């Protein structure tokens, strides 16, 4: 008892986050001021950009959060402290940007500095750690995600952060942004649906005919190793030729550039996780359940649709989750072959060395991937519970 007590008093993760956050605040700039969007920019500390009382207030809140991170074990309090820290930090950054931007000036930029990024990361880790400790059910997690997105969306549309550099890039691209965002989702989701329509039957076939498994999974594995941009490039030639030879294909929008090669490439990448997880999921189904179903006189189709697929569903969905998150990231490269999507901003930003424009594409991509992952995780957990519960009630 005497040995474990001191270990409980200081939270290890809290200690790590506090040290990292404090070091960042001391040695790294809070924001970076740029006289235009492509110059490197000058570092500015918290006390240079905020009035004394506000800067001290921000530091006091962060100190309070650090104290909670170090000494409080109640997960709810830890979450509240982390969220308070994030809100105060975000407001401080917005205030700094407002101070540094002369009214009406559209040229100067204020970007988050190293300290702000590190602190946001630390507070984000503290918040997710607290949520994990609370062990929320799937529905609560989805609600938490929805609330977070709603609050962030409200703050962004309210104009609180309009003077921060990323939002300045958004203002310039406001007309294009929704279009590219929808296109990004459409490309990622569309190729996923196509892959499920083909991958699921293929997986079932591989399960039923074990001889097929090694060649099919081997081929899909090889495809998986081709780098994304190379696969796009490889597909440009045959699809272009197809469009040139077969007028019907061209009329349907199939061509060497644009959405077609992107969707085909993502579809090919998506097949392996879906086929492999279908095979694994079906194998996981207990022999007892299959034998019982056969004994009841179920036909092959009935066995598949009533017993095997429902029991394998959580594993199959895990494959779908992997594919969706992977696709959301990989669609980015589609911008290089005219496929559109949020990658357009990323590559345009790289071309103009405008980091803020890169972030305008990259941050929503990360948010999309994260949200998709949370949603599907919740769905999988729900199904897993119901299938194991039904298995328990009907042994």
């Amino acid at each position: 008892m005497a040995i474990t007590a001191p270990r409980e008093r200081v939270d290890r993760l809290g200690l790590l986050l506090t040290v990292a956050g404090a070091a960042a605040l001391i040695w790294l700039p809070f924001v970076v001021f740029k006289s235009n969007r492509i110059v490197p920019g000058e570092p500015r500390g918290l006390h240079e950009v905020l009035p004394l009382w506000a800067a001290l207030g921000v530091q006091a809140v962060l100190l309070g959060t650090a104290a909670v991170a170090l000494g409080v074990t109640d997960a709810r309090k830890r979450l509240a402290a982390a969220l308070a820290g994030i809100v105060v930090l975000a407001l401080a950054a917005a205030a700094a940007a407002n101070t540094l931007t002369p009214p009406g000036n559209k040229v100067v930029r204020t970007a988050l500095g190293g300290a702000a990024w590190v602190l946001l990361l630390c507070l984000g880790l503290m918040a997710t750690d607290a949520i994990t400790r609370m062990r929320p059910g799937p529905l609560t997690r989805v609600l938490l995600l929805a609330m977070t997105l709603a609050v962030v969306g409200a703050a962004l549309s309210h104009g609180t952060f309009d003077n921060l550099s990323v939002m300045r890039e958004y203002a310039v691209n406001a007309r294009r942004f929704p279009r590219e965002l929808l296109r990004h989702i459409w490309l990622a989701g569309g190729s996923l649906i196509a892959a499920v329509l083909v991958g699921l039957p293929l997986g079932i076939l591989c399960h039923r005919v074990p001889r097929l498994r090694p060649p099919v999974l081997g081929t899909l594995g090889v495809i998986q190793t081709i780098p994304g941009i190379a696969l796009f490039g490889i597909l440009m030639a045959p699809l272009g030729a197809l469009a040139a030879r077969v007028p019907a294909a061209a009329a349907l929008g199939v061509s060497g550039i644009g959405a077609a090669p992107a969707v085909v490439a993502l579809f090919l990448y998506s097949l392996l996780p879906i086929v492999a997880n279908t095979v694994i999921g079906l194998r996981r189904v207990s022999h007892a359940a299959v034998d019982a179903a056969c004994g009841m006189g179920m036909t092959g189709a009935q066995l598949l649709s009533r017993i095997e697929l429902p029991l394998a569903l959580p594993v199959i969905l895990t494959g779908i989750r992997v594919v969706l998150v992977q696709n959301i990231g990989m669609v980015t490269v589609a911008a290089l072959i005219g496929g559109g999507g949020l990658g357009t901003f990323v590559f345009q930003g790289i071309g103009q060395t405008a980091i803020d424009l890169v972030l305008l594409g990259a941050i929503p991509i990360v948010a999309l991937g994260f949200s998709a992952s949370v949603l599907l995780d919740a769905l999988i957990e729900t199904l897993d519970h119901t299938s194991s519960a039904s298995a328990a009630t009907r042994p």
Partner: protein
Amino acid sequence: MARILKSLCAVALLAFAAASPLEAAVVVSSKLSAESAMIGQMIRLLLDAHGIPTVDRLRIGATPVVRQALLAGEIDLYVEYTGNAGLFFNDKADPAWKDLEQGYELGSRLDYAANRIVWLTPARASNAWALAVRGDVAQAYHLRTMSDFARWVSDGGDVVLICSAEFANAGTLRSLERTYGFRLRSAQLIVLAGGETAATIAAAAAGTNGANTAMVYGTDGGITAAHLQVLEDDRHEQPVYAPVPVIRESVLRQYPQIAAIVRPLMESFDPETLQRLNERVQINGESDEAVATEYLKSRGWLK
């Protein structure tokens, strides 16, 4: 099951069909770069103003992608650069590319013969690689042309050039040195592995590591803001990369007035105008559409 599959196929085909552009509308496209997207916007806005329906497919990719899209008929019009035709037709050595008129003549002839692509009016500006020196240095040593620069370097001028690895190693710098008769020592070079011109311009402007000369593109937006002066290629050593809208012949047949609509726009561009407009997009971060609209209005082409 078969019926479900059939209807799914039908839905997929319909989705693809819906994604393909309307038959009659002119699909205006561009490369990813700020300048080509901005000129593309101007052309799109002008066509719209003249009642020609357009589809906005700007910024679809790098040169090979846009080029292939045009040849495949997926896009109808975009802004190319005259010197690139040397690349397309595998004929980089032809001296014609070093002259705007000759390069335009040769490129438009080749492209029409091979692909039925029509070159419209080119701008009198070149986006070719060039050297730019700090304004104060240019004034102190009276540097206006590359010949002036070569004289200054050969007389022991204190030059530090910042450029990309591609510029330094792929022969561009060597051929400039040969033509103008100067030689930079490796101590006078700062070579950046990636080397976007935005980085070289910023470094020369700030005098990072003593840099006072930067590799630039002739119409780069950052040049004026960074107080740099582009050195004129007075011996026409570099291929000329003049922006030129290119269009598929079949589309031009359908809307022959496009040539006349685009001509005054392209004729209104000189290097300074393009630099100023590019600066607003690249440096100030204004949207290319806003800059394009304002320019067309200032010229009275748009109400």
